[in-house]
């Protein structure tokens, strides 16, 4: 199975500032991020012939092209799942480049997710697709996902304090990141435990990701072409996604799989990546792990084999995910600490780590995993 092993590259990354009120349109955010990514790569709008975003992104491709000055596009695609599919965007882009369908593909995601449509707020709008959930009160992501995380907690005897230990690390990393909303604002475990319940006994406020305004974009092209561009080479060693019908009827969550104390979809993605790239957990120098809520970091650490089942709490408590640990995680602060740009900002941090430009730089980072549950990718530096 080919996973684009090193043949495609992330040649440029761009973003707007991350805020709670951008003061401008989502199309403008997308346009600014795309222009920034192209400039970073040393390319121009005329070089772009492919566009990839998420099905839920509000920005129309043609409108974006008109705004940025992209003239002719011959490849577009959109990934399902929202943030869980954020890494699949790179898979789509790489597939287009590897097949020759496009040469320079821009992945983008931009929204006013705090000042306009807030993901964390329930909507009372009846929705036929949510008949099995909404009437019973599952009307926010926090509630929906907690019903899954709770099984993990009870299976392994975890408490909310265990999740807090992750949050403290994420906020510590964010505190050193000028790009993060929570720059210079670390927390203690006591702060975490003092924050109010959102879903008891699983999530407190500080376990929840932010709601953010902002845009992120990146440029994917062939490694051959990227070598001649402006930035140090960052290869896409592998990118994949998974959908498991056996795991449930809804793409966003899983209430029906055989064992909800285990992230089956993430494990499926992990096995594809390890087999497809020949790499193993021990080869990964840092990991950017999507966290809409803190518990999903635990489930992914286990699903990817960084620790055994039920061992993530101990793995985190022992300091493995901190700078200087065996697997620094979310060195930008994650979606809790930096911003919630639907997981695509995690890939930018992965790129910074390979380039050696992160504010929380991991020494000689050569392989970085970016995981989002249902999709994941590994970035490399082009050296075997």
């Amino acid at each position: 199975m080919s996973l684009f092993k090193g043949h495609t590259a992330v040649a440029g990354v761009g973003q707007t500032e991350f805020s709670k009120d951008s003061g401008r349109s989502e199309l403008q955010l997308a346009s600014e991020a795309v222009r920034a990514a192209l400039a970073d790569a040393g390319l121009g709008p005329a070089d772009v012939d492919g566009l990839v975003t998420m099905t839920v992104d509000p920005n129309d491709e043609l409108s974006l092209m008109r705004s940025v000055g992209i003239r002719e596009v011959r490849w577009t695609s959109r990934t399902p799942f929202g943030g869980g599919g954020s890494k699949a965007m790179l898979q789509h882009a790489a597939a287009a480049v590897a097949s020759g369908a496009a040469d320079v593909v821009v992945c983008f995601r931009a929204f006013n997710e705090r000042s306009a449509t807030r993901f964390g707020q329930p909507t009372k709008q009846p929705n036929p697709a949510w008949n099995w959930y909404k009437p019973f009160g599952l009307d926010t992501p926090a509630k929906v996902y907690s019903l899954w995380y709770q099984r993990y907690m009870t299976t392994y005897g975890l408490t909310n304090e265990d999740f807090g230990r992750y949050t403290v690390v994420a906020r510590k990393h964010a505190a050193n990141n000028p790009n993060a909303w929570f720059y210079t604002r670390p927390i203690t475990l006591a702060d975490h435990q003092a924050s109010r319940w959102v879903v008891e006994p699983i999530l407190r406020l500080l376990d929840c990701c932010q709601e953010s305004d902002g845009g992120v974009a990146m440029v994917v092209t062939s490694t051959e072409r990227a070598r001649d561009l402006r930035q140090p080479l960052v290869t896409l060693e592998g990118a994949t996604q998974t959908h498991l019908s056996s795991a449930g009827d809804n793409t966003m969550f899983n209430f029906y799989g055989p064992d909800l104390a285990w992230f089956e979809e993430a494990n499926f993605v992990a096995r594809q990546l390890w087999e497809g790239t020949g790499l193993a957990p021990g080869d990964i120098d840092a990991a950017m792990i999507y966290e809409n809520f803190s518990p999903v970091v635990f489930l992914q650490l286990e699903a990817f084999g960084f620790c055994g089942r039920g061992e993530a709490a101990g793995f985190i408590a022992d300091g493995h995910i901190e700078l200087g640990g065996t697997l620094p995680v979310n060195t930008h602060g994650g979606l809790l600490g930096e911003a919630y740009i639907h997981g695509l900002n995690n890939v930018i941090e992965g790129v910074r780590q390979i380039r050696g430009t992160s504010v929380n730089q991991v020494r000689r980072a050569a392989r970085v995993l970016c995981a989002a549950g249902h999709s994941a990718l590994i970035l490399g530096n082009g050296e075997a």
Partner: protein
Amino acid sequence: MPLDRLASSVAVFHSKCYEGSCKRAEKEGAYLVPRVTPPVPGRDDGYFWDGVAAGRLLGRRCAACSYLQHPPSPMCPRCGSVDWEVIDLAGTGSVYSWIISRHPSQPDDEPRVVALVELDEGVRMVTNLRGIEPARIRTGLRVGVGFAEIDGTTLPQFAPLEGQS
């Protein structure tokens, strides 16, 4: 129906607590009100809501291979049949997972317990748990179904079976 198997104190559900919290939330100007969002039954799940309106908990089983699926899909994933038969479920099961919502959409004094119940037929169903102190809910707790009208919407609601609470 298994209503007679429920602890007598919870056999009849009242919606007063929900109404009360709704009023409070509205007064506070919250844009989040814990009033039930009604289902919008369609061709694939209308049988379930018809059953609920009649006080029955119904499941859908493949007419060809008897595969029971919940939530249902229009085609049997096991044999490809599009013929289904509706059956009465026993309405008993055990708690697989649960949450107590403290979301700002719900005032803290009236949290709603959402539970994932594993029915004795082997399928899981999202529902609400009532008639038990949240602190006493445990994985594996035996529960049975009842029906309650909340803000005009009838919903299946589970409560501990006798001797369980």
